[in-house]
């Protein structure tokens, strides 16, 4: 259990210096800021590469201010990034255009390579933005921000329950896996993997049962269909300053590269 917790906080919790100016910002300012940064990056292309550089500089500055080290960013980003880059890596071989080079049986195109670089840059900037948001903002605060930003409440509540019960389900899965291994389960061919299917269905039934019990527990404490609101968020001057300092240079570079001759 202790191992699980350490692993979780390493990958999920708030990291860096919890008293940094970035950590103390209103979660809505951070959500808006990182979404804006991602949108600016996504709107750029290989030809407008200075935009990627500007985004990277802003991310590095935010990480520096928050005291979030490269190690933390790398450990968290590598969970998602390889999947995205795996798709992008085929682009140079399948996208034709510009100069083409032959490498054995494969052909690599210039346009394909440019697209690969641009897609990789966008994916990396988007992922690092999400990682920095997660490292500087507790997940419940992100949920509060989303709720206040009029994201459908059902969606926010579903995410809240998912966050709460993720750890419970992970622990149940771990116990069931141990139970399989303890009885010598060691699949050698595809058919033996059927046991994993049964574990999944048992997990589903248990989770369904838990859902019903949680609902009873909510009713028992006076729940009548509406989640009560506890917190009020207020945007303060540092939040506005953060958004302005982040948005102005990014938008200036983005518009600058469009208008440049």
């Amino acid at each position, binding site marked *: 259990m202790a191992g699980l917790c350490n692993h979780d906080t390493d990958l999920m919790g708030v990291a860096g210096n919890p008293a940094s100016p970035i950590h103390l910002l209103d979660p809505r300012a951070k959500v808006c800021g990182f979404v804006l940064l991602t949108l600016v990056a996504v709107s750029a292309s290989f030809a407008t590469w200075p935009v990627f550089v500007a985004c990277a500089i802003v991310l590095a500055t935010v990480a520096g201010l928050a005291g979030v080290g490269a190690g933390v960013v790398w450990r968290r980003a590598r969970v998602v990034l390889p999947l995205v880059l795996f798709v992008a890596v085929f682009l140079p071989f399948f996208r034709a255009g510009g100069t083409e080079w032959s490498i054995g049986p494969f052909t690599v195109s210039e346009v394909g390579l440019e697209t690969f670089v641009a897609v990789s840059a966008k994916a990396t900037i988007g992922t690092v933005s999400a990682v920095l948001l997660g490292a500087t903002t507790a997940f419940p605060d992100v*949920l509060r921000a989303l709720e206040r930003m009029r994201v459908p409440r059902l969606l926010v509540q579903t995410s809240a329950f998912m966050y709460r019960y993720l750890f419970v389900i992970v622990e149940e899965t771990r116990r069931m896996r141990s139970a399989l291994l303890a009885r010598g389960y060691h699949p050698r061919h595809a058919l033996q993997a059927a046991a994993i299917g049964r574990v999944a269905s048992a997990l589903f039934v248990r989770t369904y049962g838990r859902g019903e019990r949680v609902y009873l*527990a909510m*009713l028992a404490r*006076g729940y009548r269909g509406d989640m009560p609101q*506890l917190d009020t968020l207020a945007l303060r001057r540092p939040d506005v300053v953060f958004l302005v300092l982040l948005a102005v240079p990014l938008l200036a570079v983005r518009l600058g590269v469009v208008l440049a001759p």
Partner: protein
Amino acid sequence: MSCAVDARGLVYRYPNGQPALDGIDLHVEHGERIAVLGPNGAGKTTFVLHLNGLLRGEGELEVAGLRVDDDSLHELRARVGLVFQDPDDQLFMPTVREDVAFGPLNMGLPAADALAKAREALAAVRMEGAFERAPHQLSMGERRRVAIATVLAMGPQLLVLDEPSANLDPRARHDLLDVLERIDRTMLAVTHDLPFAAELCERAVILARGRIVADGRCEELLADDELLARYDLELPAGFDPALVTRRPRPDSIAELATS
């Protein structure tokens, strides 16, 4: 005359027609601490869910001075604090703070008052330090105490605990007992941990096959080996219920019981 629980001929059948409660008669006065003992499948949890109006059977049921019906449900749930067996079912919000404030907010309290109630309730179970933590970061014993705080924050008259000592190591069990002994509320604890029942409750009833089959002073019931064996209950080897020293109930609740 108002009482904590008054059940007469309470019957509940599962959807397949099988009776889970088969005519329960039970009277509990304000201020009492009562243990409901019984083997697995005796109907203990089903009975507990009736006390909060989560299940509705046939027969008469009055809890915390209210007849259980559609009109009284909201008030009933404020007066009866039900603590579930698995704290992971009870603690469903992302942080302890939000979870403990959930009940008071549902009762219509403003956020500042709800937070004050939450702090007070967490202090009563000695978990003040967990205010901003997430439930999954707490140990089983801590989660159980926070689960009790979630209902204490609603200021209930009656505290109903379903298997409070399940899955606790001796230290956590001892801490929980210590916390419960200081809470000045009428208490009904469902359990098959007989020593725990003996240490907390003066009175005990045995529930078997959906009926109350024995009712009396806890140490007398637990001293009757034949009775316990008949209903698949057993004291740990060497445990003598006569030697149990129970901490006196807090003054406020002792007065309530005698008035």
